[in-house]
């Protein structure tokens, strides 16, 4: 894990890039620009970004964009990708209806 205080000092202002309108999270339709702007406003972890922007929180649960987001954060912070903590894994791993999740096998409560 990198030093957040140091990272905040060095991050600099958000500067628009030509491809900021590219989608990173396909499910929740979150763009590269939105993520970059959030990082520059001080949201430096995947967890924070997920809660703030919902990137990686859609139907697929970050299957596709997880590593893209991680790389993007690392790039903005000028740290190795491995310094960026990956998102927490939670059940259910695949889309399941609320009905299914709420009703365990054979009439569970």
């Amino acid at each position, binding site marked *: 894990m990198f030093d957040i205080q140091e990272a905040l000092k060095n991050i600099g202002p958000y500067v628009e890039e030509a491809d900021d309108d590219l*989608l990173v999270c*396909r*499910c929740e*339709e979150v763009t590269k620009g939105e993520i970059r702007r959030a990082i520059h406003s001080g949201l430096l972890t995947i967890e924070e970004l997920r809660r703030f922007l919902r990137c990686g929180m*859609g*139907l*697929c649960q970050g*299957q*596709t964009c997880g590593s893209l987001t991680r790389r993007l954060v690392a790039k903005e912070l000028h740290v190795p990708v491995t310094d960026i903590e990956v998102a927490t894994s939670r059940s259910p791993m*695949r*889309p399941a209806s609320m009905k299914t999740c709420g009703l365990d096998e054979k009439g569970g409560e």
Partner: protein
Amino acid sequence: MERITMHPILGESPEGKCVEFTCDGKKLEGYEGEPIASALRVNGIMVHRYTAKRHEPRGVFCAIGRCTDCVMIVDGIPNVRTCITPLKAGMVVQTQYGVSAKEEAK
């Protein structure tokens, strides 16, 4: 898009049982048990849904049920992954707009 009928390694493709289903009201045919997405592709349908925010078209992307981009409304249920859901006779398939069957005002 065509089916592969003869393959140099896999040989003759198994011929499925033809069943009817509808997509947005149009009568189509596909093989029973094949993924809904395959049947749609063979009928030339590539757009499965339009996204909620940007109203962009989406279709099959991973084809193994992970990316969830190919979801449609199947028999009234939204968010059904068509790439891994087997086709059944009489299925009612609809393009999904956001999470509903109706196009929202842009």
